[in-house]
């Protein structure tokens, strides 16, 4: 008989060992192909933007933790993921203040004021991007951003080109293979389609993102783009270019799948992905925006709580055969 105190807790006494740190670390690993490619493609400025974005996002969260006298939560890497994804969506030429302002909006306004991780009703990265793009359009003009770069491919942003020059011209300028292999201008981490897909598949296999969302998202892009392009192939481009340019893929695998702003039941997930994609194509084809990914996913974030109420009946719910 000894006087040791025991630990008292509740069932279950086992855990599968997963954690937020693990999850976020894996997301960061999954971004590596696209990130490394982006760094190779756009050089040292890209490293600067990514590093600043990642670190400033973490610093913002730290500052907010300290101010609100809460536990320091940067160890879960959530803001690191936000910062990294945010950096990936910026052009390599972004000035430092743009990055810092963006991560401020993303982390503080997008996440912390709603109550921190898990409470944000909207994807923080997208909120940061949306605020920035509305305010400083000029820095997101990829054609202008990379004017000093020399590439061995057409240095035009495909979607902007599509908007102004029509589908026919674009099909010639951007062969699909080039787009997939990242031979296009765009944000640091969004050009290398193949890399993003590899990362996405890694996450799906590891169970860190839900396959329903990216799959329905991509299906939505293909279906909607096909409908448009079949109706008027001169104006509207086919699904290939829509899929492999702009933020489409990063949206499908990394943005739309953000946990707390996306549904978690199967049918809602399918609807969510699909309609986000439909909105993107609508905005690109008949709206004013060249790339609608950001607003489209944000819009579906708004709808998320409503559609996530579609769920399977719980066991024994409404059964009264007692």
């Amino acid at each position: 008989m000894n006087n040791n105190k025991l630990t008292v807790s509740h069932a279950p006494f086992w855990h599968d060992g997963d954690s937020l740190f693990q999850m976020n670390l894996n997301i960061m690993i999954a971004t590596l192909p696209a990130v490394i490619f982006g760094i190779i493609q756009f050089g040292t400025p890209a490293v600067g933007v990514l590093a600043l974005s990642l670190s400033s996002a973490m610093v913002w969260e730290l500052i907010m933790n300290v101010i609100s006298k809460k536990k320091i939560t940067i160890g879960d890497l959530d803001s690191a993921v936000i910062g990294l994804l945010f950096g990936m969506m910026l052009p390599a030429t972004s000035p430092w203040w743009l990055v810092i302002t963006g991560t401020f909006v993303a982390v503080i306004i997008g996440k912390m004021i709603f109550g921190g991780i898990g409470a944000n009703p909207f994807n923080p990265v997208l909120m940061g991007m949306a605020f920035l793009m509305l305010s400083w359009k000029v820095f997101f003009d990829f054609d202008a951003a990379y004017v000093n770069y020399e590439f061995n491919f057409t240095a035009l942003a495909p979607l902007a080109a599509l908007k102004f020059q029509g589908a026919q011209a674009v099909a010639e300028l951007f062969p699909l293979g080039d787009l997939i292999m990242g031979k296009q201008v765009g944000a640091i981490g969004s050009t290398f389609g193949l890399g993003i897909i590899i990362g996405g598949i890694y996450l799906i296999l590891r169970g860190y993102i839900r396959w329903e969302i990216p799959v329905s998202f991509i299906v939505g892009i293909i279906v909607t783009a096909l409908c448009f392009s079949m109706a008027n192939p001169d104006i509207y481009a086919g699904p290939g270019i829509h899929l492999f340019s702009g933020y489409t893929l990063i949206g499908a695998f990394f943005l739309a799948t953000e946990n707390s702003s996306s549904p978690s039941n199967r049918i809602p997930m399918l609807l969510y992905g699909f309609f986000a994609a439909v909105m993107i194509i609508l905005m690109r084809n008949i709206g004013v925006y060249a790339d609608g990914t950001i607003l489209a996913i944000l819009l579906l974030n708004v709808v998320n709580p409503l559609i996530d109420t579609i769920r399977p009946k719980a066991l024994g719910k409404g059964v009264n055969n007692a």
Partner: protein
Amino acid sequence: MIKRSFFTLSQPGLIYDLVEPDPKEPVSIPIPPNLILLLNEPIANTRQALIKKGAAVEKGEKLCLYNDSTEYTISPVTGIITAIDSYADVFGKISTYLVINNDQSQTSQTDSAAYDLKDDITSADQYLRTLPGAPPLKALARDDVKINTIVITGADSDLLSTTSQYVMLKSWEMLKEGARVLKTITKIPKICITIPENSNIQGGLDSIVLFKTASKYPSNLPAMVLKDHLNMVLPAGKTPEDLGVCFICAEAVVSLAKAYKKKSAEFEKILTVTGKKGTRYRAKATIGTPLHKVFKAFGIRINDQDRIIIGGPMRGFSTFTHNHPVQPDMDTIVIQSSDIIPEISDYPCVNCGKCLRICPANVPVNILVRYLEADQYEEAADKYDLDSCIECGLCSYVCTAKIPLFQYIQLGKNELLKLRAEV
């Protein structure tokens, strides 16, 4: 501990343990000098209890607090009551504990008191509720609900436990005898038994219906057995008894058979003990034995911050004292060393949806827990299916944010019961 596999697109599978083909005899724990009995009724300040400190009790004597008490316990030894006090159990429910000082001189000679057992359920309920395995005689004796099916659970309902399987393996004939007794006293014709699908237990079944249960947790839980084998859906917030099905564990059936044979009570409980390194022991201990006696028998050292789990790792509870007694329904004890206890956190739900996908009852745990955190129990029950939970604990097991989801749910159910009782 079972970790998630590297690729986790599919759900993790927790497989029930099977009893070893040729199990060793259980280690018999000697009757300790002091036994502790729990009585499921609080002591009222204002009333004079029938049980008093210093009173002598006989082996097999029925002890209850008041004349009108419906709860009782049976003393497993002859001796003196040395303490009686109230005890807050794992859900804060107040009950009573008694300490009985075992009169060593008497143990050898006095046999248990003989009971006047008739072939009806009421007389069995009079004396046999605290038999090893805790037969649900109280439920069977209720006359407001008609039970029409009895399911003997030969398949253990939690992981790491093989007590029921062991009992079946060793006492198959007694089990059948017990089933006959059950049939006689309850007049219920339909008796079923669950046996793990890949188990090697064999024997004649007489008229018992055999259910081979799947090896994956939680298929042995009552709600799942009802669904898989009896084609019944357990309505939210109802118990199997409400559907006319009563679950009884194999050991209870066996001890019932023994009790009817001897016309007196049984006190030896079979336990599966899992040590810190995962070694499995099997013990036979008198009900009321403090657990530290059991640990001593196997040389298990309990250190600061270790965890003693009573019941299995998914559904059991952890006690705060080494003195917790062996109870009639205590099949399993698991000891966890402090260094392998998984952490929990006070993170909010991050909505990863893993709990949703693994929940066998389709409870929207991710939303439910938000309401439970905010103490909105009515809302949680009305809109988010709190009552549908079958309490398997899988949601907490997979939770990325390490939220004690299962605790929230159990607490929520408890609080809701209180709220509804007030109305």
